[in-house]
């Protein structure tokens, strides 16, 4: 395979062979003729994703009374009615602060994603679980993971290896389209495949960027060494991307190259957020169906949602703190309106994934998506009883459509479960009081 060819060899090949004369092994023989699965019987890939909204919910209007399948749809779960059978609701899971402060809109989000309450605001030393999963399953797709946000702000990303390595979110649907389906895209269902000589050349020269890696790493202190090493890892990932472009991609029956989206205005006004989320949804679905990635992270609104509604003076976040509770409705009506927009968008996202046929079922059946927020009741930044939903069957590994009530358990149980389902070899996860060895067994097949 091209990836196994040392750079020096490639360069030598280029030098001696004149114009591109590299043979790249084709993979046709490895594929079954109908293209729905690999010839060796391996099932379709199972993908993992996260879907995030900011500023939580109202627990008493959220949590169903009934557990198990066919759980009751409370007022705030109404939008998921059409896809209830595909969504598992997890209630009663907490971030255990373990003596650390509750850093508002941070501890809940990062605690859930890293299995440890962060010591400082806007800092996290541990990788988020999507990164751990991508390390295990994402190495053989073009992108190890893809991050997008509907808020227009690339800083709105909660996927990170550490505070220094935050995977930035793509805010522009058009730029996201170009990254995925632009000139570098290899259509898995394309009639004929010829490795692009330009890509070969790029691949061969790119390794030379790391020529002085060893020397550089000895010249700096330990912390800087880790940062430079991350840089070289990033170079390596681009090399792997190019390697993949030089091989005929396996056919993907559900892959339909989407149309190029218009250059839409970006921003945090809710109608813009909803519109951009729809565009991003269509692109992300096809990124999955076309095997461009196995791991993704979508942000609908940011932690401490600064979403606005045209003509009103307060953001969603400000409303959660300043709006009075309407006794008749039992909630802050305007803040809750924003929350309902979020849940509606999540339901749309799930339905869209479920509308794409793949193998014997749908794309959603071959995915596992974690949706959650940074807090439960945002007014007091509660990290108790966080709103968590799972969608998809993970290729038949989990039972969808259940309500599982934790009883104040650590939320790291959820993260451990997701990693295990996705094949990460891990038997315990979390730090301090968040450490657990107990997955959420109820959802496992």
């Amino acid at each position, binding site marked *: 395979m091209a990836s196994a060819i040392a750079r020096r060899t490639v360069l030598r090949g280029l030098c001696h062979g004149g114009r591109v004369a590299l043979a790249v092994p084709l993979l046709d023989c490895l594929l079954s003729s109908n293209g729905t699965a690999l010839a060796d019987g391996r099932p379709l890939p199972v993908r993992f994703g996260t879907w995030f909204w900011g500023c939580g919910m109202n627990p008493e209007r959220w949590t169903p009374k009934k557990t198990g399948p066919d759980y009751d749809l409370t007022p705030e779960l109404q939008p998921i009615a059409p896809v209830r059978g595909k969504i598992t609701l997890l209630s009663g899971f907490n971030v255990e602060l373990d003596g650390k402060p509750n850093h508002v809109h941070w501890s809940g989000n990062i605690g859930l994603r890293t299995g440890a309450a962060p010591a400082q605001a806007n800092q996290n030393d541990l990788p988020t679980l999507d990164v751990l999963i991508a390390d295990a399953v994402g190495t053989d797709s073009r992108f190890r993971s893809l991050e997008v946000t509907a808020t227009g702000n690339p800083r709105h990303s909660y996927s990170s290896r550490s505070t220094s390595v935050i995977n930035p979110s793509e805010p522009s649907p058009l730029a996201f389209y170009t990254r995925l389906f632009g000139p570098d895209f290899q259509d898995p269902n394309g009639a004929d495949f010829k490795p692009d000589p330009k890509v070969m050349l790029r691949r061969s*020269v790119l390794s030379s960027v790391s020529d002085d890696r060893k020397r*550089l790493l000895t*010249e700096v202190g330990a912390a800087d060494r880790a*940062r430079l090493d991350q*840089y070289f890892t990033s170079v390596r990932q681009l090399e792997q991307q190019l390697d993949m472009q030089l091989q005929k991609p396996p056919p993907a029956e559900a892959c339909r190259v989407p149309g190029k989206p218009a250059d839409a205005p970006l921003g*945090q006004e809710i109608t813009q957020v909803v519109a951009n989320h729809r565009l991003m949804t269509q692109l992300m679905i096809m990124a999955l169906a076309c095997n461009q990635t196995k791991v993704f992270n979508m942000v609908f609104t940011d932690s401490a949602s600064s979403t606005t509604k045209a003509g009103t003076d307060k953001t969603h976040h400000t409303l959660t703190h300043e709006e009075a509770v309407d006794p008749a409705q039992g909630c802050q009506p305007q803040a809750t309106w924003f929350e309902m927009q979020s849940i509606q968008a999540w339901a749309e996202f799930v339905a869209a994934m479920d509308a794409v046929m793949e193998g014997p079922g749908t794309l959603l059946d071959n995915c596992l998506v974690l949706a959650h927020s940074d807090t439960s009741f945002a007014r*007091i930044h509660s990290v108790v009883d966080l709103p968590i939903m799972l969608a998809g069957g993970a290729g038949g590994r989990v039972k969808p459509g259940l309500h599982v009530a934790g009883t104040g358990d650590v939320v790291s149980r959820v993260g451990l479960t997701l990693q295990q389902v996705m094949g990460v070899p891990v038997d315990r996860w979390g730090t301090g009081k968040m450490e657990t060895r107990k997955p959420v067994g109820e959802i496992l097949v």
Partner: protein
Amino acid sequence: MSRALLRGAAALALLGALAGCKPDEPANSGAQPVVQRLSEQQYRQTIADIFGADIKVTGRFEPIVRREGLQAVGAVAATVTPSGFEQFDVMARGIAAQAFDDAHRARTVDCQPKAADAPDSACAAHVLARYGRLLFRRPLTDDEVKDRVAVADAATRSAGNFYAGLQFALATELEMPEFLFRIDRSVADPDHSGQRRLDGYAKASRLSFLLWNAAPDSELLDAAGHGDLDTRRGLTREVDRLLASPRLEEGVRAFFSDMLVFESFDTLAKDPLIYPKFSTAVAASAQEQTLKTVADLLVRQNADYRDLFVTRHTFMNRALGPVYYVPVASKEGWEPFDFPADDPRGGLLSQVSFTALYAHPGQSSPTLRGKAIRELLLCQKVPAPPANVDFTVVQDTSNPLYRTARARLTAHRTAPTCAGCHKIMDPIGLALENFDGAGGYRTTEAGTPIDASGDLNGRAFTTPIELGHALHDDPAATACLVGTLYKYAAGRAPVPGEAAWLKWLNDRFAADGYRLVDLLRTIATSDGFYAVSQPASASRDEANLRHGQGKEG
């Protein structure tokens, strides 16, 4: 060049001559060397300087997370993620393709290849060493040149075009860590036994990024290569040259952009129904207005830093006219403008950049403004609110008892858990309530007159102008500037061993009449700025032998 600028340059030259004697500078321990990722602006400026301003840089720079209140410090912890590198790859290939295209070749390739379709190692070496030196901010070693030429020759053979070969090789230079990261290298300090200092090229980078926010130019790299930056005379000469250049304004603007968190303008939006005048053009102009004010006052006029809080002199363009309710004659561009003596506007705090940035999308925010003044301009940390704080009772704008922000906040901060922090934020933030969430002037809120009175650390004021004067006279403001500038320059927070040196810096700033250009000169010509505590690794000495002390070739 304006007459004022010429005068400034002459004055600078005179000061430079006087700076020949070593000032009474206390020892500075220095700290570990840093590895700082280039900012977007630094990257773009470097490309424009080397290849021309018409070269397009197309791609997204991954964000740097602020630390110690600055992007410059965040850059010392920043790395490159896979998607970030993908973008650097896109940008590098785009730049390299333009640099050697038909339109630019005559300017960028100053040797004639033997054939257009075959490798010419000598010509490639010449071009790649020349650009490599400017990109890496030091000369390339022989091995490094050989490696780049190997890439160029191989790519030339493959593509059948000499310039395509150059293009691929230049792209790799643009993707290498030596370009994307500023890697401090140090040597033993011959003047202070047992101590270390930055090597000449690292000094050149520090100087150039601090004063111009750009990579060192060829002249400065020459000076570094000749060892000039290690002599007082040579260092002073280069510092004076950089300070006298119009490019100093870029450096000062970059510092204030960082200090005032201007990257927030990238995503700043106001509700168009509540603030119909606020547009993308207004946001961009507001930012530019402040930077123009800063550059004019502190660089061209070489005025007292504290005047920034009270100056009535600024600049206007067409976009800002309606926001400030002033006529703007110029159809294009900027014109100087002075607020009349009885105008409620004057000073940094009354500018739209400040009042709109520190506000909500549809509402002003005395708390955000008070917090920004405390933290950015006085370096006084405001603690985070308790997680379970309840704002609802007092933030109900429909309550007739609490029509104004002052009334609502007063009720709020009587709650004991809230009092501590709001006491330090609100009195100064409320002084700016005459400016709505988009920076427009107003005298009432919900029909009730706005009371802008308050006090700053015991000094009473009744108007935004008087708040500016209180800030002008607060010693914390100048100490904050010194501390922030030093963090910005060094890429890190000060360490305990620098305390005496920082006090000296503050004293010098006061003695020089709080002039920013003088403060920059003091820092740039000091020994302390280049002090390094100890090698970060055992092999650093050896590496420095190979890289830090290479002479210009």
